[in-house]
C-alpha cells in the first residue's frame, strides 16, 4: 500500500486580510460576507478595546513607577538595581496585572483591526502617561510635551476620520 504524499503548501491565501471592514486599509479580495465581525455590544468593539489597551498600558506605567518609588524608599540594597525589590510592592503587581490585561485587549483588537492602524492608535499612551503623571505624580508638563500631546491627538483624529470614511462606504 503506497503512502499518499501530498505536497505541503501554505494554507494562508497570499492576499487575504479579513479586516478591511473596519479600516482605511483598502482590500477587495474578500467578499463582505466573509469578513469577521466582533460580538455585539460596545465592550466588544475593537476600537473600545484599543482604548482600554491604551488606558491600561498608561495605568501600568504609572503603577510601576509608583511601585518603583515605593520600594526604592524602603530598600537601598544591591537588589534594588536589578528591579527585583519592586516586586515586594503591591503597586508593582497592580502594574503587571494592568500590562497583562492590556495585552489581552491588544490581541482581541488585532483579530478585527489592521496592524498598522491599531498600532498607530495605541500611541494614545503618549497622551495618557504624561497627563496621568501630572495628575497622580505631580510631574511637570512643559510646552514641548503639551504640543506633542496635541499633535498626537490630531494624528489620532485623522486616523479616526479615515476609518469613518471607509465604514461609510461599506
Amino acid at each position: 500500500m503506497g503512502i499518499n504524499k501530498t505536497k505541503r503548501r501554505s494554507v494562508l491565501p497570499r492576499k487575504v486580510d479579513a479586516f478591511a471592514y473596519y479600516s482605511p486599509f483598502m482590500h477587495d479580495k474578500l467578499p463582505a460576507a466573509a469578513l469577521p465581525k466582533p460580538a455585539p455590544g460596545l465592550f466588544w468593539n475593537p476600537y473600545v478595546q484599543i482604548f482600554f489597551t491604551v488606558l491600561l498600558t498608561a495605568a501600568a506605567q504609572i503603577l510601576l513607577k509608583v511601585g518603583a518609588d515605593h520600594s526604592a524608599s524602603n530598600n537601598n540594597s544591591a537588589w534594588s538595581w536589578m528591579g527585583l525589590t519592586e516586586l515586594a510592592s503591591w503597586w508593582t503587581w497592580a502594574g503587571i496585572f494592568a500590562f497583562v490585561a492590556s495585552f489581552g485587549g491588544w490581541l482581541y483588537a488585532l483579530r478585527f483591526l489592521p496592524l498598522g492602524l491599531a498600532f498607530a492608535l495605541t500611541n494614545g499612551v503618549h497622551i495618557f502617561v504624561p497627563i496621568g503623571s501630572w495628575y497622580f505624580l505631580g510631574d511637570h508638563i512643559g510646552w514641548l510635551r503639551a504640543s506633542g500631546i496635541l499633535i498626537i491627538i490630531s494624528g489620532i483624529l485623522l486616523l479616526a476620520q479615515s476609518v469613518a470614511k471607509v465604514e461609510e462606504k461599506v
Partner: protein
Amino acid sequence: MSLIAWTLIIISQIALVAGQIFLKRAMSRREHGGEIARGWITTLVIGIATMTVWFLLWLGVMPHVELSKQMPFEGISPILIVLGAAVFLHERLNWQGWAGVGLTCVGVLLVSAS
C-alpha cells in the same frame, strides 16, 4: 553612537515589527477558523518571543546610548509597522491614514524629546 549600538537598535526595531506581524498573523488565523486556524498558538508564541527580544534589546541599549538618540526610533516605529504590514500583510493605507500616522510619529518624538 557606536556601530554596535546602531546594530542593536536596528535589530530591536526589526524584532518589534516582526513580533507585531506574528501577533497579527496569529490572531488572523485564529479568527479565520478551520484549516487556516491550525498552528495559531505557535505563531502567537513566536510573536511573544520576538517581542521579548525587542524589549530586552531596547533596554540593553539604553545605558549605552543617549536617550535623545534612542527615542527617535520609538517615534518612527508606527511608520515601520505600517510599512511592515504593507509588505507582509498586504495592508493599504489611504492618504488620511498616512497623515495620521505621520502626525502621531511627530507627536511621539516631541513627547519623547521633552
